[in-house]
């Protein structure tokens, strides 16, 4: 089937078999490998992208379902040479370790903040609950979002 969509403001048009997931389509056909696959079963959130304003697990969407959609992926997050505010906050707070969950995590935070510019801690946790991170223990990610939205101080390490 022919699939036409907009990704990060660019138009794409490709032939695509009906069974192909949007995740594989984006990574393999469009060459945007920033979006990751952690399970392929809708369980881990590594493949999160924004489709028509909503964060979705792209491994659970067929590419043909995305025909006509407007999509954002991690590759569209920075503008030119400057990181977005979310990226800057993640960098400042060391909210990234191995980085494999990061693209999906950033997309979930982006959706949250577009709906709710001042989320509570509980709302942040809720928003990223579907994004597994095995490395960071989530704290520095949550602090990054809180800093961005409420000016929370950077978490510290006490020396005793």
């Amino acid at each position: 089937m022919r699939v036409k969509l907009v990704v990060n403001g660019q138009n794409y048009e490709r032939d695509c078999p009906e069974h192909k997931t949007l995740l594989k389509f984006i990574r393999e056909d469009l060459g945007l490998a920033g979006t990751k696959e952690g399970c392929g079963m809708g369980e881990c959130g590594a493949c999160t992208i924004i489709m028509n304003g909503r964060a979705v697990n792209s491994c659970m969407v067929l590419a043909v379902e995305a025909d006509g959609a407007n999509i954002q992926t991690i590759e569209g997050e920075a503008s030119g040479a400057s990181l977005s505010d979310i990226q800057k906050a993640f960098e400042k707070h060391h909210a990234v370790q191995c980085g494999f969950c990061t693209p999906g995590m950033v997309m979930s935070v982006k959706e949250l903040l577009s709906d709710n510019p001042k989320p509570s801690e509980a709302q942040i946790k809720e928003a990223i609950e579907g994004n597994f991170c095995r490395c960071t223990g989530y704290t520095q990610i949550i602090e990054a979002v809180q800093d961005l939205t409420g000016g929370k101080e950077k978490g510290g390490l006490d020396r005793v």
Partner: protein
Amino acid sequence: MFENMDSANLKFVGKEADRPDLVEKLTGEATFVSDMILPGMLYAQLKKSPHARAKIKKIDTGKAAKMPGVRAILTGEELDIHIGLYIVDKYILAKGEVRHYGEAVAAVAADSPEEARAAADAIEVDYELLPPVLHHMDALKPDAPLVHPELGKYSYVKAAFSPQPGTNIANITKIRKGDIEKGFEESAYIVEREYSCPSVQHVPMETHVAIAQWGFGDKVNIWTSAQSPFTVRNLFCMAFGLSHNQVRVQIPYVGGGFGGKAGIGVEPLCAVLSKKAGGRPVKFQASREEEFSLLPCRCALNYRIKTGVSEEGKILAQKMEMFWDSGAYADYAVNVTRASGYSASGPYEIPNATVDAYTIYTNKPYGTAYRGFGHVEFHWAIERHMELVATAIGLDPLLFRLKNALRPGSKTLTGETILPSTGNVVKCIEEAARRIHYGELTKEEKEREARTGWKIGKGVGALQKAPAMPSFTATAVVLKMNENGTVIANLALTDYGQGTYTSLRQIIAERLGFPLEKVKIAFESDTDRDPYDWQTVASKGLFLSGNAAILAAEDLLEKAYAVAAEILRANPRDLAHDGDRIYLKHKPEEGVSFASIAIGYAFPNGNGIGGPLIGVGRYIAQGLSNLDKESGQGHPAVDWTYGAHGMVVEVNEESGEYHVLHVVSVYDVGKAINPDMVRGQAIGGMMQGLGTAICEGYIYDKDGHLLNPNFTDNKIPTAKDLPMKVECAVVETPQIDGPYGARGVAEHSMISVAAALGNAVQKATGAEITHMPIRFEDVWRALQDKEPIDNWITKSPIGSCRSAPEMRPGIIRNKG
């Protein structure tokens, strides 16, 4: 090295610093092996065993071979190559017999993953079922089936391990210290209990993946998501009889490892398929299910501990028996057993002790290294035991810990004397206790109890760990100056998120006296380009590579000074430098820039001197020795990192539900080179530890089928599982031979989290839980005085695997 420098004199060490890898990771630019596509690349898929143990009678690949896109098919019959880290016991594809559920029996390489999948599914395998041995305690019985009848024929590392042919025992580690009979004789109390924990998965978010190309003239290129490029290369060369200069291993960004990618994994499989397919590159990426059942997990453990205590609460004797479930292959499990053996008592002094630690083969997915290298599992036991012993003899558990904690002058199980510079576990325990207001409830906590009706309890758990590594473990750093006076460091220690490169960058900048921006650590590792490093494991990276980095910086400076001295016609001793130039101390206006000598200096007349500036730093662990096989005495530890967690929980006594309200983690890190990085390791590991404490674990049916190889049935913690309050702190007792006084902290954060939770739950409710994970129903059952339901442990057809009933209640004999 430089362990006693005043912070005021340090520019980068001990301070915040950006992580150089984050921008690439945050923009999606960072390339992982799972993202890589090479020209002509084929995709591999596997046919796997649905049985725990069976004879392979026949494999029919005829149908599969005719399917579209198929370029190569392999079965174990065509390969006669054994792979192994410490005991060479594993075929690339099962041959003759399958030894665990999910084991690979045949492989296909095809043009697309879908074609490979369809062909692998079309392979027909005829099995004859054999009775499996599923529980490690059953595997010790005399009539147990043998997982490896040929154990006596395998080669293994003789200096460290003792496989027992004719049994399922892959290794025994023994420690003998003092006179245990006499110790028990003199004890006023003797308490004996058994503790256990199941196998768990590492769950790196990027599953195991590799690409291999077996080129013309047996030149092999490997790209892999692994922790240790040189170990992959070495084991690969040994298995295939290739020279080390025929094989190149490259590691780009890695999406998590946690020990599961420490050794060799799917690389040989890709390589043999590539060879069969005429040299086209072959990629294999494990599915999430394969990550659980094809690839290794953490060993299960049963740990029996018998402790003799004096009237005053001093431990006089301790008998420790560890039974480690290695699964079908020995991999790292034999070394987990060894390292756990010599650390088995936790951070306590035991004057009279015996340890017998067994690695046991069973017909299950095999066990390997996992963050903590056995210490998470056995500290669960030892730190629950300390609590239960203290409670049984009527002493406060904190006090009991402090009475027996290692202090300067104490002797470890292997006879090493603790020095003031070894680290301060007492301070860690006290600080963790202080921060949770141990032993009392604050006003808010009392109000909360009154409001909710849930009981609040507080517990602590202490920990220790030294790097488990060969006595002669070595590494090197090569520091190259660029034309403009900036530098690039090459090393083969990998950074898959721990942040070691950030810390090494700070160390190099500090020692060179250069601004951070001038120092780059090359991110991708490559055995053709980088100097040797043993492995990225054991929390040894910062210590060994940090020292090598200091030495490389010194070497570079020495060489630069020699050239500058010649140009300036000065004695090198009269020179000094800043980030840009080397100059005369007594005449600072006279000098040469680093840029002008970086690749060799040219005099005005064109004559050249010097040459490219390259500093080399080599470092090898010093003063370590093999352990005596009978007594276990010797010196295995390059450094000990101590720590403690304090935990506050609230428990609903009726339902067994609980919430973690507060966790405090304190480590003696020697020197926090980068506080943010230490905090990242501390919290990340604590959460990983909490996951295994509250919910994770492999579940099998009675035939050995793994029932939960996915995230729906094997949950890992999400953001919602975070404790309400998380705190971490460091004690800094400088490690004299550590870089700027630092010692490693990476695995440690996962250790004793489960025990601290168990201790807090016990404090709140009295529930005596001895098996982890601690699910709500386990708390409820313990409170109802019911037997735990051990569906985490396989019940094998030849008997239950539970600990003997007499081991369950604490046996107390008061001889006083």
